[in-house]
Structure formats: C-alpha cells, structure tokens
C-alpha cells in the first residue's frame, strides 16, 4: 500500500495521467454499461410482449368457436396450449360482455370480470412479480371476446439480472485491462519525466552539476521526452563546464586579490614609514634650522660689530664702498636668517598666539613709521585708511605686525608705480584688513600657489635681490596662528589686494573727535547720505580707492568701476544715486558714459565729472556739460558740498 501511494504521488504527472485514463475509461464503460442494460431491458420487454401476445392470440383463435358458441369446456381446453409457457401463471377468456368464460391456472390471480380493464400489453418491471396482458380475440374482422393473461416475470428478471451482471463483469474486466495497459504505457512517458524531475531536484539541492538523467530505453528515446533528457544533460554538461571555469577563474581572482592586498599593505606600511620618516625629518629640519639660525646669528652679529668697528677706522673711498657692500650683504644674510627662523619656529609649533587688546591707531602709526620712508624711497604713495573712531582688535600684536610687515613688504617689492593702501574697516563683529597695491598683479593660474614656499611672481630665475620667496608662506602660517585666512584678488598688470578678517575687541570706546580736515564731512547729515549709492568710475586705481574709502567712511555705499565698459556691464548701474566719473576713461569719455547712463533711466541722473586736464579746450567742454566738473586735485569737502548741493536741487 505504501508503495502504491508512493507510486501515485499526488500532483505527480503519473497521478494526473492515471486519473485521466481512469476517468475516460470509466466514463466509456459506464456509458456502454448503461446503454447495454437499457437495450437489454427493452429487449426483455419486447420479447415478453411478443411471446405473450402471440400465445394469447393463438389461444384466442383456437377458442374462437368455443367463445362464439359459449362453450366453456371447449374454451378451457383451448387454454391448455398455454402449458407450453411455463411463465404463464393464469389466463382467462371473457365474453364481449366481460363475463369470464373459461380460465387457466390460479383463479385467484384473475379478475372476475373485466369491465374496468383496458386493453394493454405486459410491461417489464424489475420489482413487479408478474405482468398482465389484456387483448381482444378476433374472428375474421370482428371482436368476439377478450383474453387476459398473467405471466410471472421471474425468469425474465433472472435473465435481465444475469445479463446485467455479465455486462458489469465484462466492463470491470475491461477497466482492469485498460488500467493494466494504461499503466504500462504511462510508465513509458512518466518514467523518463520522473527521472528528469528527480535529477533536476538533486542538481538543485546538491548544486552538483555532474549528475546526469538516465535516458530511457531506445523506444522512448525517440520521443520528445527522450530529446528533453538529452538536452537537459547537455545543458548540465555545459553548466558544469562553465562552473568549473568560473571556479578556476574565481580561485585565480582570489589569489590575485590576496596578492594585491598584500602588496598594498606592504606599500601602505612603506608609505607610513616614509611619512613618519618625513615628519621626523621635518621636525629635525626645523630644529636644525632653528638651532643653526640661532648659532649663525652670533657670528653675524660679530661680523656686524667688526664692520662697525672697521667703519670707525680711517677708510679710503674704495674701502668705504666695499664696506657699504659688506653692510648690505650682512643685512641680506640677517633677513634670510630671520625668515628661516620664522618658518622653522612656526613649523615647529614653537609660537603660541597671545591675544591682547590692540589699538588700531597705534598699530597703523607704527606701520606708517616703518613703511612710509620705504615707499617714498621708491616714489610710491603710501596711504593708510582707518576709521576716525576708536577701534581695537583682539589679537596677537606681534604676529599681526609680522603678518602686515610681510604683506606690505611684498606690496612694496612688486609695485613700481602708483602706491599702496592699507585699510581697516568694520564688518559686523569683525575688522576687514586690506592691503592694496598697484603692482604687477598675479595671474589667475598662479593665485593658488603664491602661498607656497619659494614661489615668486615673475621671478622664475629666482632673482636673489628680490628676496627669498618665503614671505607669503610665512604669512600663511601666521594667518593660521591668528585663526584667519588670507584672501587674494588680483588683476594682472593692475594690482592686487590681500585681505583678512580679525575679531574686533568688545564695544567701541567713546568717540574722541580730533581736529582735522575731515571735520566738515563728518558733520554732514548722515541720514540722507547713508542710503546713497555712489558709482565711482575712475581708471586710476589709487584715486578710485581713495574715493571709495573716503565715501564709505561717511557711510555711503560705493561701487568702483575701472572703465566705462565695466560700468555699463553692471546691470544695476542706472540705479545709482550719484555718479563720480573721471573725464578721461579708457575707450570713452566720462561725458559719453554719463549720457549713455542717462538714456537708461527716465529720471535725471546726478553726477560730478573729475578731470586732471587744464587746457582751455577741456574747460570749454566742461562748461558745456550738464554736470559739474571738478579739476584735480579735488578736496573731499568740496566734492561733498557738490553732492549735497545737487541733492538739495532735486
């Protein structure tokens, strides 16, 4: 039984096919059985009717005269022919009036008279014990009486049941045959499929692609299932092959990765070692430099003293000249040592910033004292701008001075014409410190590298006379110590600005106005002027800076443009409250520029033209202009007065 269940596993293809065979065969056999039985039933009934009707008719015919002549004895004799039919239990003749003339067999089974009966043939019934026939007796073409026959159905029923039993037996036998053969043929289909499914399952479970499905016998191998198995095996073979290749590849890949990882680790370790070495070397270098510069300072100091001593002796003109060269060489050596010392000290972390309250005026005073003569020596303007009110920074004064000294020194170094402006302005809680110059400028591609050691603008040959290139790298280190960052903007050939922010110290001290020439400007009503937006168009950088710084000190907002083209490129140019324009601008005159701006806006623009020209032609042009013209040099107070006058006249 267990094996049978395994054999007909539910949902298996064998179960499905077997069910199909059973259902089809059963249906066919049931149809045949029912059909045969119905046919047999019909047959039995027909036979019963025919046989009874025939014998009844024979008896009637034989007895016709007896009936006509009312001869019961003769009629009874005639009924004796029914003996031939064992199944007939009883029979009788009736007259036309329905009176029984003669009877045969058991009288109790016969109706006394037949008034209620109608003519009928016997019906076959499985549960009837007997069937009755009632039909007229004819003489020639007229009815002379009736015959009634009752026949036992036992033999008929036996015959029918025997037939039915036989049919059922035969059908069951047929079903068994169908199932037997069906199962044999099923196996031809199912076994290979099952083999295929089992193999596929094993392959899936074990992941073993070396398994193969067994191909069926030669006969089944020719059908689709055989083909399927062959294909499946071929597929498995291919997968096995691929997997082997993949596995090999994987192994080699793993080995490769391992090798690479080891190499990488080794390289990393080397790199780390190198880094450690380098850092150690840097520290060592810095220490060495600090020690060396300190030690070198002593002999230099000595040389300096010897040089002074030498100068005190009587020297010839030639000796005096050599002594001067010597002094300059000593100075250079001292500067170099100082710079080296600074860098090494900074790199070594030997310097800690000590923030203190630093008065801006004091700071700028010392800067002015130090650099004004140097600028004057190079014929450069050196201007300082700082607000008139008291302003204090909270920072390390020595480091800040060193930083400014480096930046201003650089500015002086790279500026041949124009000047240098050092400005400090409030920016919220911070002070913005700017160092402007009109020097050679820095190309955009170089801006990123100027803070590196030994970078020198326009000095790839490293002209020793121009310094060592250590300045900006020191600046970078100093700014870092002061917790700020240096930004640099520059235009090649026009100048540069270096700027940085430092925190302001607490609240401002009470104002202490001093008597100076800026008093009228400061006295000017600030409320109206505050909102003013003044556009300055000036190609001379220093003049433009001076104007901007002065006007902004009065609380005005300024925008500075180097040319008419630059001014017109600004989409907000027409919205300015006031224009201060140089008369002679590159490419176009200030007058033309103001006319162009006037065309951009419907309101009448207010402006002042500045010019350095004093020829009579220029004066004529100026007088014909719609705007006032001032001749340089212009004093700030006069400029402000004109601005105020135009404001009043609007």
């Amino acid at each position, binding site marked *: 039984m267990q094996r049978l269940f395994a054999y007909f596993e539910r949902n298996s293809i064998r179960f499905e096919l077997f069910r199909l065979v059973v259902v089809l065969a059963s249906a066919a056999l049931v149809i045949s059985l029912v059909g045969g039985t119905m046919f047999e039933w019909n047959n039995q009934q027909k036979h019963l009717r025919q046989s009874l009707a025939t014998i009844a008719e024979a008896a009637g*015919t*034989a*007895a*016709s*005269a*007896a009936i*006509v*002549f*009312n*001869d019961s004895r*003769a009629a009874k004799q005639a009924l004796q022919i029914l003996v031939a039919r064992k199944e007939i239990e009883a029979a009788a003749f009736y007259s036309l009036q329905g009176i029984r003339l003669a009877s045969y067999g058991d009288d109790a089974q016969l109706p006394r008279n037949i008034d209620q009966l109608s003519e009928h043939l016997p019906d076959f019934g499985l549960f009837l014990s007997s069937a009755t026939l009632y039909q007229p007796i004819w*003489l*020639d*073409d007229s009815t002379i009486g009736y015959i009634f026959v009752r026949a036992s159905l036992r033999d008929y029923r036996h015959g029918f049941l025997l037939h039915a039993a036989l049919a059922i037996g035969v059908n069951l036998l047929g079903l068994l045959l169908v199932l037997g053969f069906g199962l044999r043929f099923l196996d031809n289909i199912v076994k290979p499929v099952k083999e295929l499914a089992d193999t596929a399952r094993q392959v899936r479970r074990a992941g073993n692609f070396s398994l193969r499905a067994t191909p069926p016998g030669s006969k089944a191998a020719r059908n689709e299932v055989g083909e399927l198995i062959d294909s499946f095996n071929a597929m498995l073979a291919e997968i096995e092959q691929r997997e082997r290749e993949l596995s090999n590849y994987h192994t080699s890949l793993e080995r490769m990765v391992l090798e690479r990882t080891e190499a990488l680790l080794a390289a990393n370790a080397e790199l780390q070692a190198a880094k450690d070495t380098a850092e150690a070397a840097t520290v060592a270098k810095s220490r060495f430099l600090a020690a060396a510069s300190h030690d070198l300072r002593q002999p230099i100091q000595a040389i300096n003293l010897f040089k002074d001593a030498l100068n005190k002796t009587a020297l010839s003109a030639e000796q005096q000249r050599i002594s001067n060269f010597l002094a300059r060489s000593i100075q250079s050596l001292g500067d170099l040592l100082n710079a080296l010392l600074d860098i090494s000290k900074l790199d070594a972390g030997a310097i800690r910033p000590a923030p203190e309250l630093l008065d801006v005026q004091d700071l700028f005073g010392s800067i002015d004292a130090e650099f004004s003569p140097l600028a004057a020596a190079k014929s450069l303007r050196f201007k300082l701008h700082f607000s008139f009110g008291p302003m204090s920074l909270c920072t390390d004064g020595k480091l800040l001075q060193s930083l400014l000294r480096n930046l201003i020194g650089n500015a002086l170094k790279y500026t041949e014409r124009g000047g240098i402006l050092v400005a400090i302005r409030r920016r919220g809680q911070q002070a913005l410190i700017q160092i402007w110059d009109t020097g050679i400028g820095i190309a955009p591609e170089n801006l990123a590298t100027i803070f590196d050691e030994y970078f020198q603008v326009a000095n790839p040959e490293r002209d020793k006379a121009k310094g060592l290139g250590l300045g900006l790298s020191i600046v970078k280190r100093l700014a870092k110590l002061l917790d700020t960052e240096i930004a640099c903007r520059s235009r090649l050939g026009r100048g540069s600005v270096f700027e940085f922010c430092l925190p302001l110290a607490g609240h401002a001290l009470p104002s202490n106005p001093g008597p100076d020439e800026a008093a009228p400007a400061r006295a000017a009503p600030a409320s109206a002027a505050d909102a003013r937006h003044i556009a300055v168009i000036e190609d001379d950088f220093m003049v433009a800076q001076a104007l901007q710084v002065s006007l902004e000190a009065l609380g005005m907002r300024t925008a500075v443009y180097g040319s008419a083209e630059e001014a017109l490129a600004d989409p907000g140019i027409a919205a300015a409250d006031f224009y201060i324009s140089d008369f002679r601008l590159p490419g176009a005159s200030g007058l033309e520029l103001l006319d162009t701006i006037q065309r951009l806006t419907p309101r009448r623009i207010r402006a002042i033209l500045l010019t350095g020209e004093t020829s009579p032609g220029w004066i004529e042009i100026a007088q014909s202009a719609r705007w006032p013209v001032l001749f340089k040099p212009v004093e700030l107070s006069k400029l402000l007065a004109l601005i105020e006058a135009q404001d009043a006249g609007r």
Partner: protein
Amino acid sequence: MTLKRIFLWMVVALALPAPGLAADAATEQSLRAALVFNFIKFTEWPPAADGNALLRVCLASNDPVQLAALDALDERRVRGIPLTTARFRRQADCDVIYVDSGQRWKEIAEKRASGSVLTIGGYAGFVADGGMVEISLQDDKARFDINLLEAKRAGLRFYPQLLRLARRIVE
C-alpha cells in the same frame, strides 16, 4: 346427494325466476337464431361471380316465433357481408337454408339442385336426412352435428374451431 349440492340447486332455483311457456319458447328460438348466425360465421363459401355481396338466409318454417327470431338476423353482417332473411321459395335464391322439420326438408331436398348452400336443420335426424348442420338443444345447452360430406360436396368449408365443438361429425 350431499347437503352442499342441495344448497346449490336451491340457490340456482331461487336466482332464476321460473320462465313462462311463451317466454321459454322465445328464448329457445333466439338461441337457435344465434346458433344459425354463428354457423354462418364459421363457414366459408367458395368465391362467387357476384363476389358474395350478400348472404341470403332462407327460412323454411311456419313457427312465427322462430321466424321472428330469425328475422332479427336481417341486416347483420358477417365478415362485412350483410345478411338478408326471407321465406324459402326456391333454392336458387338462397345461400343459407334453415329448416325446422323433416317434412319441409323432404320437399326442399326433392327440388334441390347442386349449389353452395349451407343447410341448417332444427330437428333431430337432419344430418341423417342429408342436411349439413343439425342443431339440438339439450337442457338449454346447444349441441350440433355436422355432415362434412355434404358440406364438401356443396363446396363449403367449415372453420376447424367449429368442427372441434361438434358433437358428431359425419364424414
């Protein structure tokens, strides 16, 4: 004779009212007429020129009751052929002749010509006189004798069922 049998007789005597003489005679004559009709039923005539369109029954009797009973057969049909009844005049007009006495049969037999005529007699000795069917009533029970020889001679055929009922058959 047992008690049961006496009882049965008494039941029969009580159930059947004693018939009067006239009524008795009429019943007997109707029985005879019915017998005549039944004999015609079981007799087959040879095919005739006129196609047996009519069966003529001739009555040779003076008994008015008997005549009336036999006249009742008029218009009745056998195998679809209508019967007509008439008093006997000559044989040529008859297919069936009913004779009630030997006297009249002698008169008829003297003038008899050959022909397919069924002869039925109502008196004893008719078959011996050369008649074909002799009716005799015994205890209200009809009996008959048949002269098959005469019938064959006349070309008539009796149904075998009839012959089986006959008391005596002359061949």
